[in-house]
């Protein structure tokens, strides 16, 4: 196959991100554009769908078709688009608040439904856009104005939940590792069905402590498995900083899709004749 020669810059728009200097999301954008260049599809054949949050601003920073929807509903928009237009490469992108809190129910059902698309969550364990409230992945003792002394709640475990809900590809990366992120995004897009990638992406403004992540993350020492039980055991027992592709499933992707429309509704009308 003749893959056209594309550069990461072909997938960048001319809009300047609103992100703070040092925000991990810049790196996610870079890895995404590199991955799309490697995949070789034209920007117009890729759609990037998001919700609301700092991270969810990403579609407009690409040169792809983008949809910046409401808070928490990126997965639903993306699923509708992919079923309606199976010819497109569809990515949904969220923050941890967008994807696991307000959009949590869609996350479960998107994993179950297994539409052939890729879901990237830029997890900074905080609500960045609304200026520093705890999210479902925030540590229980993280102090903030809204939850003084911490929430006292045990954090949501995205990878375990993705796996338990039926996601067909599960991976974790750190935004600062551009090469690994790029490679994993490529693999996620290529893998049939619903692929979930959690990218640890520091919020340097409200979680300056997350600058340390670069020293904490480590590559998983094992190969990806297609056995969900093994994957579950590994993910349940890791320290949250294990990176790499952790599970590649073999489920058939969601079946329904829209084809070219047959314009004749007359046969449908005949059903009502007596």
């Amino acid at each position, binding site marked *: 196959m003749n893959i056209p020669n594309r550069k990461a810059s072909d997938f960048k728009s001319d*809009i300047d991100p*609103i992100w703070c200097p040092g925000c991990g999301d810049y790196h996610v954008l870079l890895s995404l554009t590199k991955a799309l260049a490697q995949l070789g599809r*034209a*920007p*117009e*054949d890729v*759609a990037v*769908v998001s919700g609301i949050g700092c991270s969810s*601003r990403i*579609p*407009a920073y690409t*040169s*792809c*078709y*983008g*949809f*910046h*929807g*409401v808070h*928490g*509903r990126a*997965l*639903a*928009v*993306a*699923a*509708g*688009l*992919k*079923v*309606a*237009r199976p*010819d*497109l490469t569809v990515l949904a992108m969220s923050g941890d608040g967008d994807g696991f809190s307000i959009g949590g*129910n*869609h996350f*479960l*059902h998107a994993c179950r439904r297994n539409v052939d698309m890729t879901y990237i969550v830029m997890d900074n364990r905080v609500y960045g856009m609304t200026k520093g409230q705890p999210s479902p992945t925030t540590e229980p003792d993280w102090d903030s104005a809204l939850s003084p002394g911490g929430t006292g709640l045990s954090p949501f475990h995205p990878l375990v939940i993705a796996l338990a809900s039926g996601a067909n590809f599960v991976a974790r990366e750190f935004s600062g590792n551009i090469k690994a992120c790029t490679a994993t995004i490529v693999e996620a897009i290529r893998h049939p069905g619903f692929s979930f990638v959690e990218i640890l992406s520091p919020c340097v403004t409200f979680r300056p402590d997350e600058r340390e992540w670069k020293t904490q993350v480590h590559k998983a020492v094992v190969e990806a498995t297609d056995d969900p039980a093994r994957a579950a055991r590994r993910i349940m027992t890791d320290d949250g900083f294990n990176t790499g592709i952790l599970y590649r499933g073999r489920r058939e992707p969601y079946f*329904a*899709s*829209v*084809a*070219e*429309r*047959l*314009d*004749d*509704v007359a*046969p*449908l*009308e005949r059903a*009502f*004749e*007596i």
Partner: protein
Amino acid sequence: MNASSSPPTVARSVSFAIVGTGGAGAVTAGSLLLEAAGKAGWYGVMNRSVGPQIRGGEAAALVRLSPRPVSCMSKRFDILVAIDWKNADRFIHAMPVAGGGLVICDPAAGEPPRELREADCAIVEVPLGELAKSIEGGRENMIAAGLVAELLGLPDDELGEVVARRLGRKGASAVETGLACIAAGRAAAQGFGRSLPLEPAAPSGARRWLITGNEAIGLGALRGGLQFAAAYPITPATDVLEYLAPALAKIGGALVQAEDELASINMIIGASFGGRPSLTATSGPGLSLMMESLGLAAASETPIVVIDVMRAGPSTGIATKSEQSDLNIAVYGFHGDAPHVVLAPLGVADCLFTGQWAMHVAETLQTPVIVLSDQSIGQSRVLIDRPADVAFLTRRKAYEPAVQSEYRRYAVTADGVSPMALPGQPGGQYTADGLTHTERGAPSSSRHDQKAQMDKRLHKIESFDYGDHWGIDEGQGDMVILTWGSLTGAAREAQEALAGEGIGVRLVSLRQILPFPHARLAEALEGARRVLFVEQSHSGQFQRHVRAHMELPFEIRSLNREGPDLIGPDEIASEIRDWNSK
């Protein structure tokens, strides 16, 4: 038994109810009779009344037949056949028998309820159970069908044909048994010494259709180009989805059952962004959940249709009963200023047109369109003449790659509608956004962009030519019945009855709720002295909506109330009669 020997007078409309416990087959009997009546050239309407129990509660088929098109049930029944009286106390008050009407029941099923014993009607006992037992595999509901057929003068050929087709799937012996039951029912009715023959239908060249409002709205949307639907089940809208799922599959489309209404509305937004005409169907609780994303569709200019089959609210309300009380949320429920379109079918048959028109308007204007149907029309099955074909030239304004200038998705144009690029089109890439945006689609918080885009979105909706579809204006007189949507049929019957008495009344009914058709309504109300608002809403949402948009220098009366007690033609007529006498 109150048998009269005088020759029966021919009726212009006959209503009957067949009641029994769920599973007794009352609804099957009713629908066989309805279809056979259609084959014999009559028109009709059938409602099912089911109790709140999912299975095993009471079930009733309520049918009205006429040689002329009918659009609503009558409030009183000429014939009531009870297969049994179980749970009768729960529903009998909703099925009053007309003066001189006929109640047919099995003595083995016990005494009829007191309401009927004390009413001015004849009670005839027929051993339905015994008759059924005398035929191998026989069932009481088919005996009941035979009884009613005989009383109305429904020809044997047509009924036989329908029975053969419907029961044919179960084998030849099932058909034979069915026919034997019908014959037994007919024979029993001949012994009554009375009947209620319906005026024969005038031969009509048109092909007759048997369809519900929920099916018709789905079919209309398909005529309008529908390719994708996503939805979450909810009474009384589920039938729209159950109709569309296989129908869409047949034309290459798809329906996705979503995890909730937040998902379903966003799925159709995604599919429509991809270029596929899309809809969802729901009822009040679901519409409430969809409001935020309806605003997204308005701001991102993504065409979608949301069908709300209204039920009695607020909250979970009465899921199986009708009301016209979602007007406020449909019109005013958005946060921010979000121009959009709200339409309402004027009856069961009009669901077809309105469904198609809604798709046309959504696609043409790149806007959300909410269609306010309701349980009373959505779940009524009617016999109608095949509706005319309506041709709309439905096309989204397409992006055409221009070499020199960069693409502006939200360009301010003369008609306010901007060319819409679809994923896959090179050079058309943009990010659809609910954030205030520039003409290119880039997020903006400038007051200039806010104003320019708001003006544009309002302009496209207000300057569009909705043609003559805004509503209807029928009849003459300085008294006006002013209504909307599903009550149009009842209002029209009232108007016709009044005309027969020499009272001329105008009927004005709105199909276009938003944008408000001021000019057309003002014209329709010209010369009016008295206006009677008719609506199925406790607070009079429709009247408030009209008042918000125009002066009403008339004497005003209102006939409005909550569901489930539907406003009928008799009530409307007597309100006008009363007013006319003052």
